């Protein structure tokens, strides 16, 4: 009798393909469009430039993806990253500590912000949207006060190593790019192949069910926000290494860009569904758009306008397709 109810076969595979092929197709379409608009787009040199521009947002988006998978959102990521880069720059230049110690100071700052975000979300049960909107402003204000809105220059070479390049064919690849790709692969493996990774999905799927199954949900979510903070710290180091300065105005478009990357990559804003490698593709789409529009001579405010429209389109498409298949 029970056997008769065992119908619907293989629906799951369709869902997985849907989330993997969409973003790649969108990336190829965007590349094709910009290639038709500018001769300079399809060059190895330009692609290595896109990759260099993508590393910061790409690493921030790793943290953002994990937070979104738990059905939260982190609006503070860009500003926390900027604060981290100011802290590490000031530590090196003003306090004169070693590069390694300066980097540790910056990363500890962003980790602390992640921990505070996570603690407010889990222990006091505030919505992540409001918590991170608050810490966004706090991090922004501290960044401006501490730096007096001045760019910090004269950084020691030790902090800029990730911006150095090596040659791969006719393209110059930065060590930062390699670090970003390594992080993506590691987090991808952890999400797929470990119990903690599966629990991240379970919490985003049905937090109460996960708790009743004995998963320590509070500790898990706290860990996810803290890990996201670590990613923002690494992104801060990458930003400093790329530009060679600590820039208090950095990260202002990164909140929206990271959420756009996550959503374009096929991760559901309602949590529990998505693949981290999709986010990498999403970040590349964002990078290709910014780069392509710049090559076409579109002013940066219009780029922000287009990114805003892009994120709404992506969420709407995702929602509509889910509603139809449900």
């Amino acid at each position: 009798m029970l056997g008769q109810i065992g119908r619907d076969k293989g629906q799951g595979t369709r869902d997985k393909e849907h989330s993997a092929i969409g973003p790649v197709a969108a990336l190829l379409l965007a590349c094709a469009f910009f290639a038709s608009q500018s001769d300079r787009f399809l060059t190895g040199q330009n692609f290595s430039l896109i990759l260099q521009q993508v590393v910061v947002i790409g690493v921030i988006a790793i943290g953002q993806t994990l937070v979104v998978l738990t059905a939260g959102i982190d609006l503070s990521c860009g500003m926390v990253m900027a604060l981290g880069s100011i802290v590490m720059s000031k530590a090196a230049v003003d306090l004169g500590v070693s590069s390694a110690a300066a980097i540790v100071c910056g990363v500890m700052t962003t980790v602390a912000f992640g921990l505070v975000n996570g603690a407010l979300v889990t222990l006091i049960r505030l919505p992540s949207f409001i918590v991170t909107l608050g810490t966004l402003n706090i991090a922004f204000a501290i960044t401006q006060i501490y730096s007096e809105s001045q760019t910090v220059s004269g950084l020691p070479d030790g902090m800029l190593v990730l911006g150095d390049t090596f040659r791969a064919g006719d393209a110059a690849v930065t060590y930062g790019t390699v670090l970003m790709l390594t992080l993506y692969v590691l987090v991808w493996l952890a999400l797929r192949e470990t119990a903690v990774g599966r629990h991240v999905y379970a919490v985003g799927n049905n937090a109460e069910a996960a708790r009743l199954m004995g998963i320590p949900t509070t500790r898990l979510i706290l860990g996810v926000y803290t890990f996201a903070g670590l990613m923002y710290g690494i992104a801060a180091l990458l930003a400093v290494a790329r530009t060679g300065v600590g820039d208090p105005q950095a990260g202002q478009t990164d909140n929206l860009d990271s959420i756009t990357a996550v959503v374009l990559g096929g991760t559901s804003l309602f949590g529990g569904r998505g693949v981290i490698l999709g986010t990498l593709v999403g970040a590349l789409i964002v990078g290709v758009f910014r780069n392509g529009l710049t090559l076409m001579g579109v002013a940066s405010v219009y780029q922000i306008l287009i990114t805003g429209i892009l994120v709404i389109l992506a969420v709407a498409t995702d929602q509509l397709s889910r509603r139809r298949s449900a």
Partner: protein
Amino acid sequence: MTPANQSAPVLQARGLVKRYGHVTALAGVDLDLLPGEILAVIGDNGAGKSTLVKALSGALVPDGGEIRLDGRVVKFRGPGDARREGIETVYQDLAVAPAMTVAENLFLGREIRKAGLLGSVFRLLDKKRMLADAAAHMESLQIGIASMRQPVESLSGGQRQAVAVARSAFARHVVIMDEPTAALGVKESRMVLDLIRRVRDKGLPVIFISHNMPHVFDVADRIHIARLGKRVAVVSPGEISMAEAVAIMTGAI
């Protein structure tokens, strides 16, 4: 084994008390679950059924009284504690992770890691083994779900509840089912009731909470009747009618 051992309760509650402000949900309730039986717990709304279940499954901590498992006093500070003691609970509202696969849901919170360094140092999951074990487990309960790799959201309501019940059948000691048929249609309820019998026939005692008298009289070996936060009677479905059970439940007798 002596007859006394055979009838010694697996799970016992003595004088459990739980208050919410001025409301007393449990007023010193006792419960005895014997080996290999389905014990139904019935009671009107507010009789303290779900509070009792939550205390036994670790979802809440009672203010007083004690819980004994195989005669040993146990204290649960969370659902994880009860689970570690071998008590599994099925909830009425289909507590599954919908986007995750059948196998993942079955092993949620008790994942199997690979042997050797890959498992102990790198914490990698043994997905192959979990898929195979899941298929064998479902087979042993005669649950016909085609693939262990399909997401639970692609299943019908009855199949989802079958997954939840199958997960609970991994229990070492006791299975608690809180209104497992409440959200299901007639045919699907029948399927889940059959499944509950199979879980018992595997040797696991089951506590079955339900509002539905026909379901209770269909599967229960004994019926625990709760009223006003206490146990007022334990009856066997053969020696009492549904009308009489309802009368005891509502205080008419």
